[in-house]
C-alpha cells in the first residue's frame, strides 16, 4: 500500500490509481459519475431523438424506437434523460459549491475567532436555519430571477448555514488541540495554522455532509423545477421529469422509474465516493490493510 501521500503530480496520479484499485466502491462510484459526464458531453451522439420534439405517441412503454418509452407529450424519455444529465450534475455542483464557498469560510472564521464574531455569525446562521429550506430557496430564486443557475445558487444559500455550523464546531474542537498550541509556539502564522492543521482535521464531517448535500441538491432541483423556478421547459432535467411523471403515477407509473432510479444511483455514487474519500484521508483507518 502507499505509505505516504506524495504531493508531486505523478505521485498524486499514481496514488489515486492505486487507491481505486484497492477500493472497489470508490472505483464504481467514480466510474458511474464519469460515465454520466461522458454521456452529457456526447448527448447528441447517444440519443437518437430530440429531447424536445413532441409526437402523438404519448406515454408509450419502452420499445425498440423509444428505449425508455415516451412521456406525456410524446417526447423520447431516453433522449430527455441523456440531455437532462448535465443539468442535474451541474445543478448539484453549483448548489454545493455555493454552499461551501459561503459556509466554510464564515463557519471557520466564527469558530476560530470566537467571541463577538462568533456570536454574530451564529445568530445569523440560526436565523437562516429557522426558515424552511424550500421557502427560502423560492424567495431567493424570486429575488435573483428564474433559471437553473439562480435556483441552484438559492439552494446553495440554503445549504450554507448547515455547512457553517458544522465546520464552526469542528474548528472549535481542533483549535484547542495541543498540536495547534505547539504550532503557535514555534511561530506559525494564523493562516498556516488554519491551512495545515485546522482544515485537514476539521474537514472530515464536511466531506460526508457534502455527499449528502449533492444528493439533496438533485432533489431540490427537482422541487424547484417542479415549481417552474429551475430548468425551463421544454428543456429537461431529471427532477423536472420525475415531477412530471409523478402526475401520471396512476396510469403510467413507469414514467417515474427512469429519472427516479437515475437520481437514486447518482445520489448513491456521491455518497459512496464521499465515504471512500473520508476513509482514504484518515490515516488512522488507512493502517488497516
Amino acid at each position, binding site marked *: 500500500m502507499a505509505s*505516504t501521500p506524495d504531493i508531486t503530480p505523478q505521485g498524486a496520479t499514481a496514488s489515486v490509481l492505486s487507491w481505486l484499485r484497492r477500493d472497489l466502491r470508490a472505483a464504481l462510484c467514480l466510474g458511474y459519475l464519469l460515465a454520466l459526464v461522458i454521456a452529457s458531453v456526447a448527448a447528441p451522439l447517444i440519443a437518437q431523438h430530440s429531447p424536445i420534439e413532441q409526437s402523438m405517441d404519448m406515454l408509450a412503454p419502452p420499445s425498440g424506437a423509444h428505449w425508455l418509452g415516451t412521456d406525456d407529450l410524446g417526447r423520447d424519455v431516453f433522449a430527455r434523460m441523456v440531455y437532462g444529465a448535465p443539468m442535474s450534475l451541474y445543478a448539484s455542483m453549483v448548489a454545493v459549491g455555493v454552499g461551501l464557498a459561503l459556509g466554510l469560510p464564515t463557519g471557520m472564521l466564527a469558530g476560530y475567532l470566537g467571541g463577538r464574531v462568533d456570536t454574530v455569525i451564529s445568530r445569523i446562521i440560526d436565523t437562516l436555519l429557522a426558515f424552511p429550506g424550500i421557502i427560502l430557496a423560492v424567495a431567493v430564486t424570486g429575488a435573483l430571477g428564474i433559471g437553473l443557475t439562480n435556483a441552484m445558487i438559492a439552494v446553495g444559500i440554503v445549504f450554507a448555514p448547515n455547512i457553517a455550523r458544522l465546520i464552526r464546531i469542528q474548528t472549535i474542537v481542533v483549535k484547542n488541540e495541543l498540536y495547534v498550541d*505547539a504550532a503557535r*509556539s*514555534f511561530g506559525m502564522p494564523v493562516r498556516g495554522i488554519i491551512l495545515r492543521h485546522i482544515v*485537514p482535521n476539521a474537514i472530515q464531517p464536511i466531506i460526508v455532509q457534502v455527499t449528502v448535500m449533492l444528493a439533496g441538491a438533485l432533489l431540490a432541483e427537482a422541487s424547484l423545477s417542479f415549481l417552474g423556478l429551475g430548468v425551463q421547459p421544454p428543456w429537461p432535467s431529471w427532477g423536472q421529469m420525475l415531477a412530471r411523471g409523478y402526475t401520471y403515477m396512476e396510469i403510467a407509473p413507469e414514467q417515474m422509474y427512469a429519472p427516479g432510479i437515475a437520481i437514486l444511483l447518482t445520489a448513491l455514487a456521491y455518497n459512496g465516493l464521499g465515504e471512500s474519500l473520508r476513509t482514504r484521508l484518515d490515516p488512522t483507518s488507512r*493502517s488497516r490493510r
Partner: protein
Amino acid sequence: MSTRNVSVRFPVGRGRVLTAVDDVSIEIRRGETFGLIGESGSGKSTIGRAIVCLERPSEGTILHDGRDPHALRASELRRHRRQYQIIFQDPNAALDPRMTILKSIREPLDVAGEGSRADRDQRARDLMNRVGLGEGFADLYPHQLSGGQKQRACIARALTVRPSLIVCDEAVAALDVSIQADILNLLAELQQEFGLTYLFITHNIGVVEHISDTIAVMYLGQIIEIAPADRLAEHFLHPYTQALLSAEPVALPSGMRPDHRIVLEGELPSPMDPPSGCRFRTRCRFATGICAAEAPKLRELAPGHRTACHHAETFRLDPNLKEGSQ
C-alpha cells in the same frame, strides 16, 4: 527568563473570573533546571503556557532575556518565540494525527523557512536519531507509535528551532514509569549538549528532586515556597511543602515506611473564590488568626530560600507533631 508579578485570569462566564495564576514572580537562570510543583489546578501549567506566550498575562510581564515578548510586533513575536518551546503532557494530542512523524518534526523548520527542503529533512532526521527514534519512524503516523516514542518525537520537534528554554509541562506524567526514566535521562543529556534551560512542571516531587537546581512550590495560583533543590527536601519551611513531600510514595513494605504521611483534608478551594489571607489556611494544621487576616508574603529566610507562611520559623518545632520527612 523571569516573570514579574504575573497574573493570568480567565473569564468563566456571567462576569466571573478564574484567577489561575496570581501575582507570580520567578526567575530562571540560563542553563538551570527550574522545577515547579503543585497539585492539579494550582496554576503551574498556566504559568508554563504564559512563559511560552500561549497565554497572555492579565497583569505583570514576562521577560525573556529582559525583553517583554508581548511588546513585540506579531511577526517579531513569531520569530522570537521559537527560543521558547514547550513539551506537553500528552504527546498523543501534541502531534497532528494527519501528519507523518517526519513532517511534524520538520514543521517548525518549514515555518522558519530555513534552508532547502532537503536540508530541513536532514536536520529533522538527525534530531530523530538524536532522541532515539530510528529513521524507520519517519513515515509513520502518530497512532502507530507508543507514548514514549511520541514524546521523543515531540522533544525532537521542540529542538529543531534550537530553543534556549524548554518548558516541560508534565512531560513524563503520561508515560510508563520505565519510560519516564529514559525520557528524563534523554532530557538531561540534551540539556548538556544544547545548553538548554528547563522549566520542569510536575505534580510528582520525585521527578524534579533529582534533576532540578531550584524548586518552586505552587498552591492555588501562588508560589508559596521556593528554594534550591538540595535544600527543600530537608529544610522546607511551609506546611504545604511538608505535606507534598510526605505524599511521595516510598518503595518500602508498609511496615517499614516512616509513619509520617500527612494527609491534607478537604479539596483545593475554588480559584474563583480563594480564601482570604493565606490561601492554604483552610487545609493547614497550623492556621491561626493571622493566617485568615493577612496574606503572607514571600520572605527570604535563608539564601535563595523564600517562603510565604506566617509560621515558617516555628511550625516544625510544634511538639505535638512528628518531624517531617527526610
